[in-house]
């Protein structure tokens, strides 16, 4: 029987557990920080001296920790890219802009156990010689920002923050910065621009890699909330020990947000790769199965931008088994282990760890129209393919779902979507808005064709569509 493995959320839901520092300290809080700050320089066999911060970075590298925000990039590698010779300050930013539809894991940490995040951040800052760090939190988390500010004040009062932290000689300040309601602020360079007070236009890479030219053109690390919490546990138990959690190359634990048509939507912390998608959806310990009388139709496995899986899909996947050998194996959809590499091999991604379950009551065209409308609304508008393509797809889907579709609209949609991703855009939003369309239409084409065939295609451009009415209103208020 698969079970939750609660490490980050160990205490969060315990009765009486409070987000204040006293409660956190009673549960062993800030002990890991004390350990990290107290690390003595070590001399390697080759005679090279390794300071405490570098030891911490090595532990994170050894742990195999992969970013929990969406891309699943190696955290240790990300830290290793930081330009430490520039002479400029290094900044750490906690990305708490959790905005991928279907994702609600960081929220649990921020609201219920903010000091764990702070401890993770302080350790990570110390490890990277950071003296100023920011928490960029989505504007909608109004209470979350208050909780974090309260926690920061408590930590300052206890000298976990500020000058000479716990007598170690290390200084660090952390500030909370609230976003103003834009999905794109979760993209790390867009976030940095927003933090600098500008429009959250993602930066072009090259040359603006955050590790070299980040916040205020200084080396910057941007890590997700959950990733920074994991750092605390890596330092507590040692990187090698942490790497034994989960599966090879997919180490540690991960909080999965399960939503949609399941009996028990919620967040579940599991060892990465030790639990299958089917278990996360159907097991009583997790999603608890679909609603009675309903059958599975589709799964969006990693937040709304991930490519959809169709019920009954089968995959041939090369995967590294625990003995370290690669072997190709056929997997039913529900038997796919929920980890980074397997889902990528299956053609999608685990993204932000958000599983959205769609049962057979779902109109798949409507579902895609909803997703596409979100991305059209959230495209920042900086670069051409995403700016124009996202709204175009949304308009076509709006037409399809409002009785004005054409049978050729399925191909029409695919051809638009194919022109957006794959390095044609500045940031990964191009992929985020195109993948749902490519995968929904690709895997449920008959439904799109049927919807189009049932529609009354507009022979000429309609004089006043709903969109035009909205636009006219927007124009009236602007002028």
């Amino acid at each position, binding site marked *: 029987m698969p079970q939750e493995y609660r490490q980050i959320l160990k205490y969060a839901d315990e009765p009486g557990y409070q987000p204040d520092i006293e409660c956190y300290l009673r549960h062993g809080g800030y002990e890991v920080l004390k350990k990290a700050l107290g690390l003595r320089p070590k001399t390697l066999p080759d005679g090279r001296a390794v300071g405490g911060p570098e030891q911490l970075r090595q532990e994170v590298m050894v742990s195999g920790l992969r970013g929990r925000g969406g891309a699943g990039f190696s955290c240790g590698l990300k830290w290793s890219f930081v330009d430490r010779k520039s002479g400029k300050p290094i900044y750490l930013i906690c990305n708490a802009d959790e905005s991928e539809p279907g994702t609600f894991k960081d929220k649990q940490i921020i609201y219920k156990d903010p000091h764990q995040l702070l401890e993770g951040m302080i350790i990570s800052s110390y490890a990277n010689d950071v003296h100023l760090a920011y928490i960029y939190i989505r504007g909608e988390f109004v209470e979350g920002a208050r909780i974090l500010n309260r926690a920061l004040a408590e930590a300052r009062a206890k000298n976990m923050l500020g000058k000479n932290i716990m007598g170690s000689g290390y200084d660090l300040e952390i500030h909370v910065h609230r976003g103003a309601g834009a999905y794109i602020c979760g993209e790390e360079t867009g976030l940095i621009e927003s933090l600098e007070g500008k429009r959250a236009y993602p930066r072009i890479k090259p040359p603006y890699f955050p590790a070299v030219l980040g916040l205020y053109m200084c080396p910057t690390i941007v890590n997700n909330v959950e990733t920074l919490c994991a750092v605390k546990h890596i330092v507590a138990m040692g990187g090698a020990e942490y790497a034994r959690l989960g599966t090879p190359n997919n180490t540690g634990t991960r909080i999965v947000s399960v939503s949609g048509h399941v009996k028990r939507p919620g967040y579940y912390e599991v060892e990465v790769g030790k639990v299958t998608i089917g278990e996360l959806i159907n097991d009583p310990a997790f999603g608890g199965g679909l609603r009675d009388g309903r059958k599975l139709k589709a799964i969006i496995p990693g937040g709304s931008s991930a490519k959809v899986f169709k019920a009954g899909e089968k995959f041939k996947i090369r995967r590294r088994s625990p003995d370290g050998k690669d072997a190709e194996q056929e997997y039913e959809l529900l038997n796919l282990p929920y980890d980074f590499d397997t889902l990528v091999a299956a053609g999608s991604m685990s993204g932000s760890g958000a599983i959205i379950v769609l049962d057979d009551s779902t109109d798949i065209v409507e579902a895609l129209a909803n997703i596409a409308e979100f991305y059209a609304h959230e495209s920042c508008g900086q670069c051409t393919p995403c700016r124009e393509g996202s709204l175009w797809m949304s308009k076509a889907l709006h037409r399809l779902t409002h009785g004005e579709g054409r049978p050729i609209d399925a191909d029409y949609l695919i051809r638009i979507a194919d022109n957006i991703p794959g390095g*044609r855009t500045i940031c990964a939003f191009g992929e985020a808005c195109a993948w749902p369309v490519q995968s929904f239409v690709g895997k449920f084409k008959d439904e799109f064709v049927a919807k189009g065939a049932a529609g009354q295609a507009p022979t000429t451009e309609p004089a006043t569509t709903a969109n035009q009415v909205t636009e006219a209103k927007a124009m009236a208020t602007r002028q």
Partner: protein
Amino acid sequence: MSPATTTQAKPAAPPSEKLRVRVNGKEVEVPKTMPDPLTGKPLPTTMIQACAVANVDVPHYCYHPKLPVAGNCRMCLVEFGTPALGPDRKPIVNPDGTPKIAKAPRPAIACATPVTPGMEIYTDTPAVKQMREAVLEFLLINHPLDCPICDQAGECKLQEYSVDYGQSASRFVEPKVHKPKRVDLGPRIVLDDERCILCTRCIRFTKHIAGDDALGIVSRGSYSTLTAYPGRVFDNNYTLNTVDICPVGALTSKDFRFQMRVWFLKETKSLCTSCATGCNTVIGSREEQVYRYEPRENDAVNSNWMCDYGRLNYKWIGRPDRLTAIRTPASGVRTQAATWSSALKEIADKLKAAPAGSVAIIASARQTNEELYLLSKLAKALGAMTDSAPRVGEGDRLLLNADRNPNSNGARLTGVSANPMGSNLPQIAESIRSGRTRTLIVFGEDATRHGIGKELLGKLEALIVSDILPNETTAAAQYLLPGCAHAEKRGTFTNTKGRVQKFMRAVEPRGDARPEWEFLQELLALITGQAGAVSVEGLFNRMAGEVPGFQGLTWAALGDTGVTVPV
């Protein structure tokens, strides 16, 4: 505001290391770094710069060589490869000895991606063509396609790239996004937001070059809208440059809007005459009428820009009260109009008869080097006192010079103007008052505004005036010789930094008017008996031989962008 784009001299860039890349199979050597357009600091050479070296055109909208890179239009996406490395980190070699190239899995924007040694750039693969086609389609779906009434038509990058890289048919069946039309951005600019492709060139120009962070984008996604800061008027002195760099018809000049189809315009290389900076321009004219000035690139002077004040200062060329007829004392009496030959003969006779020291000359620092040179020769032959009039306004840090004369340095180098300029004018006035000066020659200035009032002019035996537009001095003139605007003749100016630059003739002179250098040469020949040069080229070269400040110059060597002399 950056000194690198102004008239200030750039510090010489240190010699850069070179590297070799291939563009569509052709090997080129490019510098490893190129100067940042704003700061002059070395930046890694980009693919688009390497392609320029290889003479391969990469289509682009947002990229502009004089602005910071934005990378948003995605039109310059190219494919590329780099030398493949083996496990030993050494390049893998093909059987024929060439390095094996690992093609990058994703395209890159040529405007922002640095080149690396051995890189291969592919700008004409099927995938690149497909990406351009897609970008163009995206740019056009919400575009109003109103080319028939758009001023940009004919010089529009959407049109040009549609022909080169676009599709002929549209498959877009959705309603278009509607945005504000005819937005009054400022006193000189109208914005059509539906035509805007959001390349942000104008935003970057006004922020980084003009130093006025006035423009920005509001709203998101496809509804993104260019606007001036709320409640602010876009009215700095450089706004019209945004019309030049706007690749589409979004930003239009109120002055030029709906006046003329650009394909009818003849383009003539010229100079701005509104201040001593001497911005290089292109005059757009049709059928002897000037329709617009545009800046012409010259990194030694004005980069790619010019100020609105200078750009719009052309209407006087076509003014209906332009002086077009020759006037002699007899021309009002006789029924027959005066001719150049008769007028110049009369003037020459008068001047020859004038006692030495009885003639004074007021020249204008708006005249060309050649004309000022001829006037200095005339002054020498007559023993005349000379000067010209200073013209001063408020300058700025970018292009506009406080000296509003285009050729003050020419007036100094030819010795026509006193030092400081205008300091001889009170002496000339005094000399007329005392009766010593009895003949005054005035070119292009209104003497009554420089302390030589009507009553003094009335004391003269002869007042010989050449000008373009009427004023109190021309009204008092006995001999009036209609001259030419710079757009109507050829010649050279020497700018505030000593840059000697030439300009060409865009339109024909009005009426009887003739280029001043032509009739000054004839007059000199009549007085001295020595023949003048027959062309402005010959005249310039003769001047360069005689005037020490212009020594060694030739008309031909000036090229399009001029040569700097010490001033």
